[in-house]
């Protein structure tokens, strides 16, 4: 039975605090609740504070719809922040996911704050595609009654920076919407500018439409740093590496490691499906090379910044421009940045920067996120990560993944990693432990599914579990093979299918395997199975999506539109979830 005495999500507390209070309140007796309210009121009065007057009916608060489109969770996190600020200002805020919203519903709102991520090469996040396409369609509704503002998230390393947010902003204006303020476009270091923009935008909106006296009824508490003392990106937890093992065979063409870290005392209560953020350090050799190429004498502070604080690899078109301006050299074309890094840029005109110019040129070093490959119910106080060391050559230079090589090659057991939690509430096991799940996770994409399986084993979930794994070579790349064998033996894992791309003349990928077993797959979906996809966003997730559409068309004996409608329905039902990167 749902407890009747829960705090609303709009209560002026952080989500975690609401949850904590609800845990207590939901099991109280009427006497306890009466005592608590009396006690707190008395306390407040005794401290000389303003007596609360909750009994007075609040003035009608201005509605605010905060609409987010997210892939990695950043937009959603910002939407949550915006909701708190809005509530503080006296709005009646509502946070909605583009996945669950239509343009018609959006057009019916009075005040609309859009927080939109751009994914890959200028695409909207997968779950926002339907909303986005409908908004761009000729028959999109008019937004004449809507005030709006758009916060766009992106990554300057990609050419189509903030494309989705930009196009939504332009489209809403074209459809008659009234801009509250200009769009902001945020790079990977979005937190400070995004929060500042949210504050100023909502204050401006509040000035236009807010209920003046509403602010007075709100207890002003700063919730800008939610989560209490949980580690954050800015204040990560120094987790000791307890296990650091290469899983790839010695003849593998890949380099994948199992890294276990101790979270003892970290206050990181992750759930299966969540990611762990890792704050990496740069390659010291590269940092030195960058200093040398820039022509800057290395002092410890500067070198430390280059190691731990600044991104010395990613190169954006903007940096190419900035560099040309600062050095007075001829500007290189924007596409020159593709496949190149900071060091390549500096070496085009070596020795031309001051320390200040160099640090100004560089972006902050972003953390990297790894899907957690364990369940706390199986390994309390630990989190397991599955990390593929990235090495490649481009433009004649060896390149190395910043975090992946830092963790796999420059760390060993006993060392510490700076970590923090990134929750992924859209990638959760079904609430119903009996519901079957299909997990498609090639490569390191298998990580969250190991967490799922550990979790389902720990809680004795009865639902069937089907894993589809893939990699390059069966012999050298079968990650966690022995564990999966044990789970098949114990019947936790109902079924395992594999696709190894390089073991036969024709390349075989997970989507090929899915097609081969489409009858069974369709049967599972018909039985209500939830389908999860984790791994590479650019090729794999798209190919799997296409394969699913073909399977639904083939097995459901329907056309493409029918298949798409069915997959959309499955997605809206919360049974098609992705964690792709």
């Amino acid at each position, binding site marked *: 039975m749902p407890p009747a005495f829960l705090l609303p999500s709009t209560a002026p507390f952080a989500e975690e605090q609401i949850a904590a209070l609800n845990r207590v309140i939901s099991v109280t007796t009427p006497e306890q609740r009466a005592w608590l309210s009396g006690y707190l009121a008395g306390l407040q009065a005794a401290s000389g504070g303003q007596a609360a007057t909750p009994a007075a009916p609040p003035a009608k608060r201005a509605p605010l719809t905060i609409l987010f489109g997210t892939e990695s969770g950043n937009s959603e996190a910002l939407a949550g922040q915006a909701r708190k600020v809005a509530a503080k200002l006296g709005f009646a805020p509502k946070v909605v996911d583009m996945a669950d919203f239509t343009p018609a519903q959006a057009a019916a709102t009075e005040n609309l704050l859009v927080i939109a991520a751009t994914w890959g090469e200028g695409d909207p996040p997968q779950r926002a595609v339907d909303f986005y396409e409908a908004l761009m369609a000729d028959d999109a509704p008019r937004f004449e009654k809507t005030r709006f503002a758009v916060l766009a998230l992106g990554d300057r390393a990609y050419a189509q920076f903030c494309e989705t947010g930009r196009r939504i902003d332009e489209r809403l204006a074209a459809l008659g919407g009234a801009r509250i303020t200009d769009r902001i476009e945020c790079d990977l270091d979005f937190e400070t500018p995004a929060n500042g923009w949210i504050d100023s935008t909502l204050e401006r909106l509040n000035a236009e439409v807010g209920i003046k006296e509403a602010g007075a009824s709100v207890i002003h508490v700063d919730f800008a740093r939610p989560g209490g003392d949980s580690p954050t990106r800015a204040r990560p937890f120094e987790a000791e590496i307890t296990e650091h093992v290469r899983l790839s065979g*010695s003849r593998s063409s890949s380099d994948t490691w199992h890294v276990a870290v101790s979270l003892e005392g970290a206050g990181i209560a992750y759930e299966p499906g969540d990611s762990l953020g890792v704050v990496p350090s740069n390659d010291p050799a590269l940092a030195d090379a960058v200093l040398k190429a820039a022509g800057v004498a290395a002092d410890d502070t500067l070198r430390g910044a280059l190691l731990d604080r600044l991104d010395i690899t990613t190169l954006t078109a903007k940096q190419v421009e900035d560099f040309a301006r600062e050095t007075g050299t001829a500007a290189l074309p924007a596409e020159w940045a593709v496949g190149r890094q900071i060091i390549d840029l500096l070496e085009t005109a070596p020795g031309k920067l001051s320390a200040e110019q160099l640090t100004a040129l560089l972006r902050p070093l972003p953390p990297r996120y790894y899907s957690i490959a364990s369940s706390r119910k199986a390994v309390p106080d630990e989190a397991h990560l599955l990390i593929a060391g990235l090495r490649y050559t481009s433009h004649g230079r060896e390149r190395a993944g910043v975090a992946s090589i830092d963790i796999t090659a420059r760390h060993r057991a006993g060392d510490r990693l700076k970590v923090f939690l990134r929750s992924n509430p859209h990638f959760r096991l079904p609430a119903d432990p009996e519901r079957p799940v299909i997990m498609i996770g090639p490569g390191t994409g298998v990580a969250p599914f190991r967490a799922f399986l550990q979790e389902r084993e720990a809680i004795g979930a009865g639902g069937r579990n089907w894993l589809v794994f893939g990699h390059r070579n069966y012999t050298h790349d079968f990650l*966690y093979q022995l564990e999966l064998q044990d789970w098949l033996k114990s019947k936790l894992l109902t079924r*395992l299918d594999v696709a190894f791309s390089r073991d036969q003349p024709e390349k075989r990928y997970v989507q090929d395997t899915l097609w081969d077993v489409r009858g069974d797959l369709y049967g599972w979906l018909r039985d209500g199975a939830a389908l999860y996809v984790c791994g590479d966003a650019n090729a794999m997730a798209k190919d799997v999506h296409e394969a699913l559409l073909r399977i639904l068309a083939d097995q459901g004996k329907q056309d493409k539109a029918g298949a798409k409608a069915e997959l959309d329905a499955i997605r809206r039902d919360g049974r098609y979830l992705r964690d792709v990167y």
Partner: protein
Amino acid sequence: MDIERPLSANERIKQASNFLRGGIAEGLTHAETGALSEDDGQLTKFHGFYQQDDRDLRAERGKQRMEKAFSFMVRMRIPGGIVTPAQWLTIEKLAKERANGTIRLTTRETVQFHGILKGNLRPLMQGLNAVTLDTIAACGDVNRNVIATVAPWQRDHYAAISALARGFSEHLLPKTRAWHEIWLGEERISGGVVEEEPIYGRTYLPRKFKIAVALPPHNDVDVFAHDLGFIAIVQRGRIVGYNVTIGGGMGMTHGEPETYPRTADVIGFCKPQDAIDVAEKVLTVQRDFGDRSNRKHARLKYTIDTIGLDRFVALVQERLAVKLTAAKPFSFHSTGDRLGWAQEEDGTSHFTLFVENGRMKGGMLAGLHEIAGLGIGRFIMTANQNLVLADIPKAKRKAVQKLLTAHGLDGTFSGLRGSAMACVALPTCGLALAESERYLPDLVTRLEFELERFGLREDEITIRMTGCPNGCARPYISEIGLVGRGPGVYNLYLGGAHEGVRLNKLHRRDVNGDAIVAALSPLFEAYAKQRKSNERFGDFVIRTGVVAETTAGANFHENLSPDVGN
């Protein structure tokens, strides 16, 4: 026979296998493991393949949370070792696409593919079947691939003996459709039809069974090393029949003197038209009288020594429609291949390509690919792990020579290297105790240095190495035999006959490479200085008392010198 002892585990597996099907098809569906079940692993041999694992990788696998690096070794059934150029191209393609990219020629005139993943077994078998090749009974307790002297330059005789090899193979092929069902997806015949194996019965043979056909004076097939042999007798320019030999076999077990290699006995003569019946009857006597309790004592050679040669022959004669008559005289002069070009009077040529230890890869495969692309002649695998490009028309010889030169395939080798053979051993063979194929070439290089010092570079001395005592490279019937005992350590045998008629004798126990060279170098020197005209090294070491002569398998372990070592 003494029937009171329990049957070996393999007998039960065969009995319960429903004519070699077992659980193989089901095992193929288990994606989580690269292996098949242990019992099915015994049955797959009858389908032509062994489960193996890469022993170089064993140490790292546990840490990587992966099972052993399993793969399969698939051996083909190619009676007489003859394939067409088109078939060769298919074999090469399959080796690249489904195996580890190499082709291994074996001492049974066939091809082994290595490193095949479970999921590639079916495509491989289907690829072979598409060019009318198969792997049926290439391993297992059945008649294995039948080999015959490779002598395309003796056109008529060669046609006769290679046809006979094919005849043996077809007649003694298991009749079960298990291979076709599992690998090709052939529909199971249902209802009423009771399968049977008219020659083998439900449990097939107690152990493997090997047949060779020899055309004197070449004993390239080592006819005396086989369970059953046929020595062609040529009179007035045609094959009038065959001397029949029984009871040869190489395998033994270290530390078990009741196991031993044995050279075959000549038991009589049959006419060409009766040869297949003779083969069937020898095989069925072994089927009925062989030891099914102890697999180390199950080969035909032990059956003969247990019940006596005379009794065994009598049992065969009883079953024969046309009885064997007295053996006819014959003589052999060598076991090696004649490397390089051989030309017939009409200009037709044959090129015997030296393939060190039978392992073909890279440039050699590229060269053969181009030669096969000419679409001429036949590709014939020899019992010495070499390859004969046979029946090259006069007009094409230059083109072939050009390709051989272009790919560096017409080099010359020392007599020792050209007469060397090694089994596969590490890293894939599960039985190997020591390196073989990966080590012998280096050892030969060291020995060549010694031989050259004494002017023996061109002398063809047979040297054979195996990684374990089971004898795949027939080490006990060579002039120098090396049998693995442990990592880097071998037993050194000497005194086998160059022409393959006499076993060798243990000379030094548990010696490493240095000790092998140290033991052989003074013998080479003595041989160079003291040998009689045309005296072979294997005969020399007996005449000079280095080792005692082994006159029969039963005294292989006897008369050892006190210097052998512990």
